[in-house]
């Protein structure tokens, strides 16, 4: 730009001088001074237009040169289709992988959440001495909502959805409903497509009367009826009025099919002890998150004084919604992004070494162009244009790869990756690809172009384009091989660590046997099952009927299936060890089980007895605990016969006798350690059925469905799943990372092998004369092979050493995504070294074999 400015100033001076001279001439011709000046101006013409035209000339000529360069570049590439194809393919792999992954990063991490004012949305976690991500009790929530002033809207949704039977059509369907409070949709800025959001008046009831439908339920079940507002639907035999239909699905936050307002006048909604609401707030404009936090702290302290039994030590912790939703995957995605960036660097190194070789072959042309007056900058521009053309072609091909890659990534579809459905190759992604391609073109093109254009004219002409042998010329090639190997060592070690970690995760001791285990859900929603005995007899009959089917083994029921994301926990004290302060409750997972749950899951009984039918039928006050529970709460003591006083929804804690001990099992995630858990006998309205099968569990689905229908034809069952699938779904995030980084490692290895092969082939061609000479002087073929392979392996070893050191530094950042593997795992490092060493050897051996076949007579005549 400054150059243009200077040229403009010079033009100004020129024009001034011109008019001045003309005026002088006119004066000499005898004109009056005024007239002389006026005539000169008229003679010159419109000064502004002249300046504009001149400026236009600069632009036009610049474009002419550009087009010339591009035409020439295209011609050069067409003349060497092999070189062009290899370079474009290399770059397409690097750029394509980057584009695909960036699509994911853009959708998940960078793009704002699909809510209005998403930057002002904050999430509230319940905070206590033992917890920092708890839910909030309904009574606390209403107090916070009423007393805080930091929020434009403050609402909440229940942490877990409830299941309903929706009547209509030929068969009732089971749907998920989510309890939300007034202010929830307003905070998120969600305006219903039809009707209205919930209002405070909707909450003043013991039983919710109105519902809002999700977009997909409205479409699928109600045929997108625009006149649905005000009409009634039947949920679990009760009539509800539709007051709203949402315009879009809220898949980021909830997969509910419909929403109902929190019935705050219901007895269960008065509690400060049961925490199940998840509040979300829209900060007022100008209020910072720390100001809001300070206000909530004040309210929490006040509540703690007012209700010391339930609220002492409890508070709320605010966190931006975006970080709540995507924070957990941030580190994994950043690791992947770093790895794919390294892959692009490897691709650049490859392209650069290809260009170096090409520019050497073109030396004669370059020398001639210099000799006839092409300046260095003009030459640089020409060479850079060519590399940019290659990069842009690579980018265009990479976009095709990225489209395929994105579909593949979405197909992997890990549940743990939020916003996956939003992932696409968007305009922002394409723009970033374009920038990446330009950057890439300069990165790999500049070095070789500088080197080629620096060539000394005289020396160049003297060499006359013959292949030179000087060692310094090959140093650039060597450096590129070393860099490439070093980069790919880092990528390979990272992917090796992740694969190793995934392998261990897949073999981790679950505490139960998922093979040949079928599972489904049964919900007894009709009011006749409000009766405990009726419920028990349903499940016991179901157990008997399924067990009598051929191929079925043990059958059991559990309220929360392991690794399915379901969870429940409760407070308890140990009767034999009462706490000093009556409010010092312990907390542990609790599950309700029935039938032969432990038998079906193959969870071993290590002490005492399992439950029998009478335990649930007579609602006996017994409990079974697992080994982690014993280790934590009964160290050095036999817990059998001791008593737990458990909170079961009523103010009075229920005392239960410990009758058995079972092994621990993974419940939330494969990564976590085994958690203390308590099991009580009985059945909920909704239970997971687990069926152990002798053979293929899929064969039992009909038997299970028939058994349910035989007992009660009205009950809907949800889909069947294999327990093995449940386990692998829970590891989908890890599989995603491992597969992706594995793929990047593969690409890195491929590119590096191609790079070493390319450079050594080139060097063999360059050294043909020397090799021929050596052989003519009596060198053995083997020593020639050793010469070439030795050169390749030496470079690879140097790269390997640098790469290993870099990896030790870099892989520390991976510790959060690794499981049971140290970032410096020696086995992984050794394996990568062996693999790369082998690949480097093979990639050097093939060119060496060609060198071995060099005919000394031909070689010496060469050129």
């Amino acid at each position: 730009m400054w150059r243009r400015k200077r040229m403009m100033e010079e033009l100004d001076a020129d024009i001034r001088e011109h008019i001045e001279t003309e005026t002088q001439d006119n004066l000499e011709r005898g004109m009056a001074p005024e007239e002389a000046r006026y005539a000169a101006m008229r003679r010159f013409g419109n000064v502004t237009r002249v300046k504009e035209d001149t400026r236009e000339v600069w632009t036009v000529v610049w474009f002419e040169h550009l087009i010339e360069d591009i035409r020439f570049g295209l011609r050069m590439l067409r003349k060497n289709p092999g070189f062009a194809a290899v370079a474009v393919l290399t770059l397409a792999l690097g750029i394509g992988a980057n584009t695909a992954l960036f699509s994911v990063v853009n959708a998940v991490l960078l793009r704002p959440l699909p809510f209005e004012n998403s930057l002002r949305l904050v999430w509230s976690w319940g905070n206590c001495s033992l917890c920092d991500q708890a839910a909030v009790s309904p009574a606390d929530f209403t107090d916070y909502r009423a007393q805080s002033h930091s929020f434009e809207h403050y609402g909440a949704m229940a942490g877990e959805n409830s299941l309903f039977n929706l009547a209509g059509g030929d068969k009732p369907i089971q749907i998920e409903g989510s309890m939300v409070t007034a202010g929830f949709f307003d905070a998120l800025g969600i305006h219903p497509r039809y009707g209205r959001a919930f209002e405070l008046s909707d909450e003043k009831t013991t039983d919710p009367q109105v519902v809002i439908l999700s977009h997909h339920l409205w479409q699928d079940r109600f045929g997108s009826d625009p006149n649905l507002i005000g009409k009634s639907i039947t949920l679990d035999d009760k009539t509800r009025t539709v007051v709203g239909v949402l315009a879009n699905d809220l898949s980021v936050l909830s997969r509910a099919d419909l929403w109902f307002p929190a019935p705050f006048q219901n007895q269960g909604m008065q509690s400060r002890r049961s925490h199940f609401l998840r509040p979300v707030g829209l900060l007022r404009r100008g209020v910072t998150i720390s100001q809001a936090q300070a206000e909530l702290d004040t309210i929490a302290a006040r509540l703690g004084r007012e209700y010391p039994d339930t609220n002492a030590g409890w508070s709320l912790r605010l966190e931006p919604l975006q970080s709540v939703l995507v924070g957990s995957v941030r580190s994994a995605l950043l690791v992947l992004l770093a790895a794919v960036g390294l892959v692009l660097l490897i691709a650049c190194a490859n392209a650069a070494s290809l260009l170096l070789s090409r520019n050497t072959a073109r030396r004669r042309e370059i020398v001639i162009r210099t000799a006839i007056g092409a300046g260095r900058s003009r030459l640089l521009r020409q060479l850079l244009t060519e590399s940019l053309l290659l990069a842009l072609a690579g980018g265009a091909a990479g976009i095709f790869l990225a489209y395929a890659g994105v579909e593949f990534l979405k197909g992997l579809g890990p549940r743990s990756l939020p916003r996956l459905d939003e992932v696409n190759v968007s305009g922002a992604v394409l723009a970033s690809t374009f920038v990446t391609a330009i950057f890439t073109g300069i990165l790999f093109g500049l070095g070789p172009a500088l080197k080629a254009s620096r060539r000394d004219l005289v020396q160049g002409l003297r060499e006359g384009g013959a292949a030179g042998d000087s060692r310094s010329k090959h140093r650039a090639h060597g450096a590129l091989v070393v860099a490439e190997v070093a980069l790919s060592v880092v990528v390979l070690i990272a992917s090796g660590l992740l694969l190793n970690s995934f392998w261990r995760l897949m073999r981790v001791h679950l505490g139960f046997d998922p093979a040949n285990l079928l599972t489904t859900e049964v919900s007894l929603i009709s009011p006749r099952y409000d009766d405990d005995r009726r419920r028990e007899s349903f499940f016991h009959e179901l157990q008997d009927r399924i067990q009598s089917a051929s191929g079925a083994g043990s059958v059991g029921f559990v309220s929360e299936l392991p690794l399915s994301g379901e969870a429940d926990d409760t407070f308890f004290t140990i009767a034999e060890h009462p706490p000093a302060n009556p409010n010092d409750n312990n907390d542990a997972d609790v599950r309700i089980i029935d039938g032969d749950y432990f038998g079906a899951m193959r969870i071993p009984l290590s002490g005492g007895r399992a439950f029998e039918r009478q335990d649930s039928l007579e609602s006996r006050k017994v409990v079974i605990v697992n080994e982690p529970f014993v280790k934590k709460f009964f160290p050095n003591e036999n817990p059998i016969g001791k008593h737990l006083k458990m909170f079961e929804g009523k103010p009075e804690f229920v005392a239960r006798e410990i009758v058995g001990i079972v092994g621990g099992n993974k419940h939330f995630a494969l990564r976590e350690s085994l958690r203390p858990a308590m099991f009580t006998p009985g059945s909920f309205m909704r239970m997971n059925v687990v069926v152990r099968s002798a053979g293929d569990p899929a064969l039992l689905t009909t038997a299970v469905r028939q058994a349910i229908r035989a007992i009660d034809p009205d009950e809907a069952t949800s889909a069947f799943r294999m327990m093995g699938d449940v386990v692998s779904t829970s590891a989908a995030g890890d599989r995603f990372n491992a597969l992706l980084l594995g793929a990047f490692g593969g690409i890195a290895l491929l590119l590096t092998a191609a790079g070493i092969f390319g450079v050594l082939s080139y060097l063999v061609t360059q050294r043909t004369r020397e090799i021929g000479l050596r052989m003519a002087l009596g060198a053995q073929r083997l020593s020639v092979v050793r010469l070439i392979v030795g050169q390749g392996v030496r470079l690879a070893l140097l790269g390997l050493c640098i790469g290993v050191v870099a990896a030790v530094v870099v892989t520390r950042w991976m510790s959060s995504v690794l499981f049971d593997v140290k970032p410096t795992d020696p086995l992984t490092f050794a394996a990568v070294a062996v693999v790369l060493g082998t690949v480097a050897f093979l990639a050097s051996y093939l060119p060496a074999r060609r060198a071995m076949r060099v005919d000394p007579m031909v070689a010496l005549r060469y050129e």
Partner: protein
Amino acid sequence: MSTKEERERIELLQGTLDLLILRTLLLGPAHGHAIAKAIEFKSDAVLQVEQGSLYPALHRLIKRAWISAEEGTSENNRRAKYYRLTAKGRRQLELETRKWDKLAGAIARILAPAE
């Protein structure tokens, strides 16, 4: 506005000015005003270039490396640019002149009264 005299002057064909500038500079380096004067003088004032239009043309020739510009002092003893023909420009002039001769010859033959 335009006088009778001006209407009889010939508008220059596109690109012709470039050729005239190159031809003028064949005699030696000159600055802008001198080039304009030389073209006017040699064509007996038939080709009266609007002097300003010289400058875009000069810059086009510089960009194409057919002429080069260097600093110098004008007759008025002030800083002014001198323009000089380059080797590339000299070749271009030969080429353009041949092209022009061919064109002029062809047109003359077409316009000549039948013999």
